[in-house]
């Protein structure tokens, strides 16, 4: 079960609290918006978390003034195991 920190970009205003609480996970861009360190693609919107960062992430979710953060637990990726119509 991997936990992801989901950033709702339509709500985020770049206040920067999350980057302060999770300095190892999030950096800030030219305009102050969070950037997931060392991640590319959609992992910059659903940021995978290490167990050690989970508590700080929970705090960031709770404290974000724009309510732009949430935690996603164990999201099952779409697999190739699907059977048509079932």
């Amino acid at each position, binding site marked *: 079960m991997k936990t992801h920190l989901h950033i*709702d970009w339509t709500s985020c205003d770049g206040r920067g609290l999350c980057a302060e609480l999770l300095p190892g996970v999030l950096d800030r861009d030219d305009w102050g918006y969070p950037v997931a360190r060392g991640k590319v693609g959609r992992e910059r919107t659903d940021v995978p978390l290490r167990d050690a960062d989970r508590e700080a992430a929970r705090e960031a979710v709770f404290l974000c003034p724009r309510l732009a953060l949430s935690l996603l637990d164990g999201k099952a990726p779409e697999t190739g195991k699907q059977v048509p119509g079932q």
Partner: protein
Amino acid sequence: MSQANDTYPPVPLQPAQDTTRQEPRLLAAGADAGWEQHVGTFGSSEPHTAGPGLLEALAEAGLTGRGGAAFETWRKATAAAGSVRKGLFPARPVVIANGAEGEPLSFKDRTLLTHAPHLVIDGLIALAAALGGAEMYVYAPAAGLPHVQRAVGERPRGKRIRVVQAPETFISGESSAVVNMIANGSAVPTDQRRRLSESGLNGRPTLVVNVETLAQVALIARYGAQWFRQAGTGTDPGTRLVSVSGPAPVRDVVLEVPGGAPLSAVLREAGMDPAALSAVLVGGYHGRWVRPAGHTLSPVGPPSRVVRPGAGVIHALDLQACGIQATARIVSYLAGQSARQCGPCMFGLPAMASVLNRIAGGEANPRLASELDRLGRLVSGRGACRHPEGTTGLVSSALEVFAADFRAHVSGYCTGPGGAAA
């Protein structure tokens, strides 16, 4: 673009020299096909009786979405079907035929809705039936609306289909924007914690399917997967519509080409000589610049030999045009089309457009190209929709294909005439 409706049937201006020639499938019923022409051409069918067997046929056919992402249609439909069963009470799913065509260089969906609305509706009804009786919508821009409404009024069971007008913005066809428009009257993308196939319109499992994809579904439902695979290649079966445009006097034309078609053959069929072109934009404004020779159109394969058809846009640039100026205009447009909801897109895209315009304008600053690259990497993957990475992809292809022009520009001259830096 306004000529799109005049281009049927798609008669090649020159005999094709490659294996691109394709008997029309989707537009076989002819211009402005009404119900009788439609049934007369394709035969009668009972799309509302389709069951889960249709999804198996779609899997066997290997049909991929024709709206841009080229995701396998059966997977998308099966995911929605799975979500229907997951809840305590099964939620009635929703299928939306997406005819929004915000790509300024795309006109194939408009052409299809004008001439073959019944084929699209057959596919919509069949897919909705295969999901156990889904709610049905057609989402179409003003140009396609009257044709859809007429078709809905002409056919049995048409009343069950609701028709919603799509606004003429670039992102109006993004799937969460489609759902948002139907639910709230606002065609901007929404944050997605869950996939639309799990929770879309009013929380129901929702499938947003491009209109051409649905027309292909209708043909597969009628004639089967084996018939579908008679065109195209093993990895890119069937046919697709492409909107081809180029330097004057080349006319805008919609062509139906087999999967895996060589780009140069498609260009020739549209009346262009690949040797007289500097580059071709394939896929749309979120697509990629490539050289006119050497690539085939397919959603899968190595990028050195294969270019993804995306939304089916093929736009050729002649040898005199400056690719950097062309790209700068497109990126400026894309920056203006940001919904201004997500910070990285709202600030990053105008920043990219500004740097690109400085390069196009001939500012002799060798750092500009790397700054453009940095900004592209910065915005990528950070938004409710894929507008940032789509724009980045276009810019990086320009940096690659027009590398020599970039060097010339940042040294203070433009290799093409008519440039500000010339």
